[in-house]
């Protein structure tokens, strides 16, 4: 029995990465390395206004004064910033009026990934912004959205067409001085998505950005800015993949969300960057700063993430609950298998009155994976009646993996109620036995148990994503139950 389980465990954990192919697209790259000149080159390539160049330079100069933080529970090999290409873009993207103009190789890439770039074929209606390496290549459904006044475009287009909005909001949630990787991103970000939902508009479809790292030795630094004006609603999806390579690749993104009065933003991520091979060679370093500001009263920001990819994941999607009665939510499933490491969690900063936050984090460790939850719940002095509930569970599938929990609770108001609970345990042998006894194979039983365990989080995803997430979980854990 033990042996059969081990075997299935090793089969499950050795599932191959499906998206590891590389597309031969003609790319424009700048030389390796980082300097003030590189920052200027990136800016000039994108014909940016002076204020943006200034912002980048300020960020770069600040970054030079910073050191990589050492506090996470991660083993990160040293990163040589002079070996990274900071800008790579698919060529010939001058006039993208119809799909026929897209490089056929590029189109093939997206077809392979199952990303619908062709609007007519896609009836369920998800507007997609596809970002390859550093540049947004195609945004679908732009016109349909425009009718309702919704702006959904690449970040570069937004800088050209809506400079006022970008200038007003960029850096307001994640300032360029925020942390090491946020400063780096602010200096060299190449593109990303921009989204603005006007007052009172309920976005009729899911908005989605699809990120793909393609070129070798490049870092991907994109920036997403999402603004939900008063009484609006939007659900936003993000997906990520990368080719299998032996060297590590750096991905340092920033996501900023602003929710005005009574606005609601739902942000879902299925992160499936290349996790490296079974021996821990290669894989993406996913060091991302994500933060939402509940600026107005009754606003709500909800983060849902399924983290199955990346060699190292290091991110804390957070909510600043500034508006009275605002709500922050964080639902996460993080899977680490083989040599993957994850240090992820959230921060909930309660500033306004009657603010509420919920944290549900499910960690699954298999193989030699190390999975840490790190979270902060902070209730400021004036945040009367703040309420937080956190639950962080870890499931261990193997005797060489680790699961860790580092919650920080800082409470400065007597009316606050803050609760945290966490459990760590092995997958239940009695549960597996129960399934076996009813004719369900151990592998299927493990799939069932893990899915049941993660259900609370998966249920928060939009339907199409939930199906994908469930499949992903199964693949990531193929053969990993002990």
């Amino acid at each position, binding site marked *: 029995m033990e042996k059969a389980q081990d075997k299935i465990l090793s089969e499950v954990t050795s599932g191959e990465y499906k998206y590891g192919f590389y597309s031969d697209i003609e790319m424009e790259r700048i030389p390796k390395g980082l300097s003030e000149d590189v920052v200027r080159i990136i800016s000039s390539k994108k014909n940016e206004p002076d204020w943006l160049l200034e912002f980048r330079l300020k960020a770069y100069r600040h970054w030079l004064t910073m050191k990589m933080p050492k506090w996470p529970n991660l083993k990160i090999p040293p990163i040589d910033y002079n070996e990274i290409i900071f800008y790579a873009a698919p060529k010939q993207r001058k006039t993208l009026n119809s799909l026929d103009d897209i490089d056929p190789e590029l189109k093939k890439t997206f077809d392979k990934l199952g990303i619908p770039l062709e609007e007519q074929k896609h009836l369920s209606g998800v507007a997609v912004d596809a970002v390859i390496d550093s540049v947004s290549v195609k945004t679908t459904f732009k016109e349909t959205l425009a009718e309702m006044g919704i702006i959904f475009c690449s970040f570069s287009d937004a800088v050209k067409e809506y400079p006022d909005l970008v200038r007003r909001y960029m850096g307001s949630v994640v300032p360029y001085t925020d942390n090491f990787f946020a400063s780096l991103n602010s200096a060299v970000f190449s593109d990303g998505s921009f989204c603005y939902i006007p007052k009172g508009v309920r976005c009729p479809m899911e908005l989605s950005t699809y990120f793909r790292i393609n070129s070798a030795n490049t870092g991907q630094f994109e920036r997403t800015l999402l603004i939900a004006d008063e009484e609006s609603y939007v659900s936003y999806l993000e997906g990520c993949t990368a080719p299998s390579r032996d060297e590590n690749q750096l991905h340092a993104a920033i996501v900023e969300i602003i929710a005005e009065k009574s606005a609601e933003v739902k942000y879902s991520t299925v992160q499936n960057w290349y996790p490296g091979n079974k021996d821990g060679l290669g894989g993406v370093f996913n060091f991302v700063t994500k933060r939402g500001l509940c600026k107005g009263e009754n606003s709500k920001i909800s983060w849902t993430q399924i983290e199955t990819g990346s060699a190292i994941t290091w991110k804390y999607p957070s909510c600043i609950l500034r508006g009275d009665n605002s709500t922050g939510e964080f639902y996460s499933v993080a899977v680490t298998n083989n040599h993957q490491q994850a240090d992820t969690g959230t921060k909930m900063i309660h500033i306004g009155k009657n603010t509420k936050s919920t944290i549900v984090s499910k960690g699954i460790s298999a193989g030699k994976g190390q999975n840490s939850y790190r979270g902060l719940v902070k209730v400021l002095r004036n945040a009367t009646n703040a309420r937080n509930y956190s639950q962080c569970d870890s499931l261990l599938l193997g005797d060489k*993996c680790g699961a860790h929990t580092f919650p920080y609770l800082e409470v400065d108001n007597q009316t606050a109620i803050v609760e945290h609970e966490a459990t760590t345990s092995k997958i239940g042998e009695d549960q597996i036995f129960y399934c076996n006894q009813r004719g369900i194979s151990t592998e299927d039983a493990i799939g069932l148990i893990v899915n049941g365990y993660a259900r609370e989080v998966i249920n928060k995803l939009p339907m199409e994503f939930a199906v994908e997430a469930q499949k992903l979980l199964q693949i990531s854990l193929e053969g990993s139950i002990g």
Partner: protein
Amino acid sequence: MNGKSETTEKYLKLYHDNIDKISDNSAPYLNSFREEAFGRFSELGIPTKKDEAYKYTNLSLFFDHDYASYFIPDAADFEKAEEFRCDISDMDTHGIVLLNGFYPTINEKLRQLPSGVWIGSLNAAAKKFPEIIEKHYGKYAHTDTDGLVHLNTAMASDGIFVYVPEGVILSKPVQVVNLVQAEVDSFSQHRNLIIVEKRAEFSIIICDHTLSPKKFLTNAVTEIFVGEDAHFDIIRVQNEHNAACKITHTFIHQERNSVASSNNMTLHGGLIRNSTYHYLGGEGAESHSFGLFLADKWQHVDNFVNVDHAFPHCTSNQLFKGVLDDMSTGTFNGRIYVRPDAQGTLAYQKNNNILLTDDAKMDTKPQLEIYADDVKCSHGATVGQLDGDALFYLQSRGINKREARLMLMFGFAHEVIQNIKIEPLRDRMDNLVMQRLRGELSRCASCMVKCG
């Protein structure tokens, strides 16, 4: 830590100025640790808020101050210590008094209890029982990050020594009354060593008191060895005035199938930091760590617990509670660490806190670090107020709100107190906590200092 702070420099100087005096007065084996420990201290320095383990505790308030320190005990002082009487009259214990970290000279330095248990001065024991000391001293106080433990090893010269031989069951607990008294602001450090051999059973109560209204800083390290199948309990009762800062580091090393518990009752004190390290160093060992604190005014209480599951099939349990009033602040930092081979581990941790005012603040950091898979670990932490439903229940049965609140708070605290096995002490604690909650006890019982 790079670059030594001014504060650290001060303690480096203190060492250089006094090391000869300290060494002359203490046993050679204790001296052999000093230089290396001092080296480690100079690297680490006095902890600041940048050190993760002291993130919420600002020691500089106390460490920046200038204190007098003395390294050779003054005989006249001990007479004062003799006058002190514990006010728990019906508690039958073997008493020892420690004054400013030294063992009184007017008694015998070491005494033997009927069953062959030795209690007395560490310094004297180091001279009389070199083989025991060499086997245990400095073996359990392991820390890579806390400079204060090294500072203690470098400079402490005396403290309590207890040796419980194999198979001895001591029915009466040993009570150590730890007094601080001086006419000037003082800094003292002491070092305790407790050895409980195989199959022995032993409990110790350590009561901390301050006797004069000066500013005090105490940095104490206690090393405890609990042998195979042995049972051991340590209970600390901390009752110091608001200008006193007490830092304790307790290292409990447990062998196979032993059971040990630690209970920190913090009733009063300016700044209190209790670090308790449980090392489960043999299969089947069981450890319990309890803590209760009641803080008000500007007091700060910090409980730091580290439970290290190094062997399979061990059990650990942590329960810490705090009630914070006025502008007081509290910290809980608990960690369960399960090593790769420690399969079959059961580990629980619970931290509950009640904030009574908007100015009080609680920071809590319950942590799990688990590297084995066959484990059951859980932790829970809450910060909040009294349960509204429970309050309503009591009120609806004719109990007035004030009384109902008191009952609930008392019940909250009693959950920790009930783990004290010594009955007179348990009743006394219940009593003191009740008085404290009623506001009748703004200073500690038996305290001659009015602090405010």
